[in-house]
């Protein structure tokens, strides 16, 4: 920091150990000048920070940028007050000068430090890290579902590249996701490889004002695969099972589920955007049991990243997976082919559906549960159709 460099060493000399002979060549005026210089430097730096932040804020989230700008304004005013405020009485001797200087310095530094710390917190806690307070980890390495904070922060630039640059994801209706408390995001599953889970997670993290961290459920077979399974654990995926989902929801988490499961992700290209059967209504039972609102989510654009042309079960046998997908990029482009085509994605968040109102008695009423599950399915299908109507081009949205 500039101020420590410019003020500290000489002041210390003056304060404690300096003999008058040594201190004599340091006139009082120069000290004041130094303070002024340090101040101007700080102001310049603040300006730079402000510029940077406004650039960042304008792009990503206007609400954030506003908050940051207001804070900065307040900071600048305070500093201006300090510098132009009541003029210190002219010191008579060297010691008095020093006292005034240290007082001024401490005031300035205290105010500055508070602000700078505030920014750091804002940056690290709100923007980079998601608010996973509830999954309090007993070990600091990973949380109880195997999510690695450090690893996630490390790959955040890469995932942001895919979010902002590669698939250029835009979101609609994120405000339907509650700021606090549990919610079940029910989405369509598509795209051969389960990228839509991480992207929904990123969408809630990047575009929602509360920066919530959604956990997404992943099919069983992913966890049989080397590398992919481990990766999914580390970035916040959870194996799809009633136990896991219930545990997460009871801790007031956002959970994204894909009731279509493997049928949805592995449907051929000619069946794109046609929702498959929604399991056996397990997610409705889950929502009723845990008293959770359901938020329908439609992901448009993910189907075309990996147009599934053929499923080869013969090639899959040695790997222990259900099938090897044949798409325009897999397996022709090797590892690069896994990311598919750069289509434009849009994620629509619908209005919350309250199924908990039916009460726990509804758990035994299979007809009602099937009906509710069909209702949610229709809502998502309509959202998909709407989204497809609005879309003009696959690659440019």
């Amino acid at each position, binding site marked *: 920091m500039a101020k420590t460099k410019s003020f500290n060493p000489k002041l210390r000399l003056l304060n404690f150990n300096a003999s008058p002979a040594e201190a004599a060549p340091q006139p009082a005026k120069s000290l004041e000048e130094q303070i002024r210089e340090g101040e101007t430097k700080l102001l310049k730096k603040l300006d730079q920070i402000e510029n940077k932040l406004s650039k960042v804020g304008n792009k990503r989230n206007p609400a954030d940028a506003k908050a940051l700008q207001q804070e900065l304004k307040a900071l600048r005013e305070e500093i201006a007050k300090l510098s132009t405020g009541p003029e210190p009485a002219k010191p008579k001797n060297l010691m008095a000068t020093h006292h005034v200087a240290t007082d001024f310095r401490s005031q300035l530094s205290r105010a500055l430090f508070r602000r700078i710390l505030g920014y750091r917190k804002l940056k690290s806690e709100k923007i980079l890290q998601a608010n996973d307070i509830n999954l309090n980890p*007993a*070990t600091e390495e990973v949380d109880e579902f*195997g999510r690695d904070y450090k690893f996630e922060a490390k790959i955040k630039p890469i995932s942001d590249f895919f979010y902002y640059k590669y698939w250029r994801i835009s979101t609609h209706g994120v405000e339907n996701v509650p700021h606090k408390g549990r919610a079940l995001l029910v989405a369509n599953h598509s795209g051969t490889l389960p990228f839509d889970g991480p992207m929904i997670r990123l969408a809630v993290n990047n575009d929602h004002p509360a920066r919530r961290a959604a956990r997404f459920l992943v099919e069983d077979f992913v*966890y049989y695969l*080397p*590398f992919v399974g481990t990766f999914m*654990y580390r970035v916040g995926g959870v*194996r799809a099972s009633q136990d*896991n989902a219930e*545990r997460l929801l009871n801790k007031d988490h956002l959970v994204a589920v894909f009731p279509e499961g493997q049928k949805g992700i592995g449907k051929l290209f000619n069946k794109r955007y046609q929702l498959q059967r929604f399991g056996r209504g397990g997610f409705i039972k889950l929502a009723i049991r845990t008293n959770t609102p359901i938020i329908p989510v439609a992901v448009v654009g993910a189907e075309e990243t990996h147009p599934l042309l053929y499923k080869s079960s013969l090639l899959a046998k040695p790997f222990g997976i259900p099938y090897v997908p044949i798409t325009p990029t897999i397996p022709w482009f090797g590892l690069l082919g896994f990311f598919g085509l750069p289509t434009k994605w849009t994620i629509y968040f619908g209005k919350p559906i309250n199924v908990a109102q039916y009460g726990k008695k509804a758990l035994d009423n299979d007809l009602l549960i099937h009906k509710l599950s069909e209702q949610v399915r229709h809502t998502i299908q309509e959202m998909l159709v709407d989204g497809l109507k609005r879309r003009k081009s696959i690659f440019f949205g």
Partner: protein
Amino acid sequence: MASTSNSLPKVVAVTGSGFKATNILQRLDRNRSIHKVISLYYKTPKLRLSRTKYIHLDLTEELADAKLAEILKKEKVDTLIHTAFPITPPRNLSFAHELISVGSMYVCNAASAAKVKKLILTSTTDVYGPFADNPNYLTEKHPARGFRKNSFIKDKSDAENGFLRFARKHPKTIVTILRPCTTMGPTVDSFKTAYYNLPVIPTVMGYDPLMQFVHEDDLFRAVESAVYEDWPGIYNIVGQGVLPLSKVIELTGKYRIPLSMIGLKAFVQTLWYLDILPAPASYIDFLKYICVATGDKAELEMGFVAKYTTKEAFLSFIGAERLRRVHLVEA
């Protein structure tokens, strides 16, 4: 399920002579409210406790059940803790079957003949088995599927099932089955600690499962509370938190070699026969898939919460291992 104070044990017998039996005996020996503690050992114990009576018992010999019943009747044993299991999978599978599966059957027979009030079995969470489709936190209601691939675990499951059958037949007897996860601590000596003691630690390439440990003190605390209070049923005894295998190996400060899955089974099996690796190939899945249990039931019913987290339990083992290496602790 409430505990009753009038059923405080008077004579407690402990089978086995491993680290579990030794530690439990030490703890019970200290408690003056217990009249007599009996050790039914197979290997001659290194240290003899003052108040404990030592009796030799081989559960693999013929008519071991009759002999055990005689001892139990003669000493008027009311609580029997069964820990006589090999911790490490022995190379002689038929011996393991005799000792674990048939031995537990003998114990059940003897207990029913001598009308023992309480039976406690220390099993392991390995009986759930490592599977990719396990939920992240296995509860006691989850089926124990570990026997499908592993004959050593199958024997343990057999023992558990024998005890559960016994509980159904004798509803007045309190049968407690404790399932601790991988136990770590300064005195633990098992094939899992041997794995972390290898000079370089082999793992499976592309897999990094979550691990869970419980400290030995916590396990013995749980056993003690099962001795003094009545907790019929199965309880998972686990430490809080999980660690990925890679981080666990980082804590040991050693290198790991990720091995490719191709031909790994044959390779590991060969090294096991050559006495280089501590576990057979059927244990590879523990390095691939998750097998983590939740201790919610023990917390809600027994009020048992592990004092050591997973990481602390492992660090205590590592610390003792360092001291052992410079001969500050007896091996």
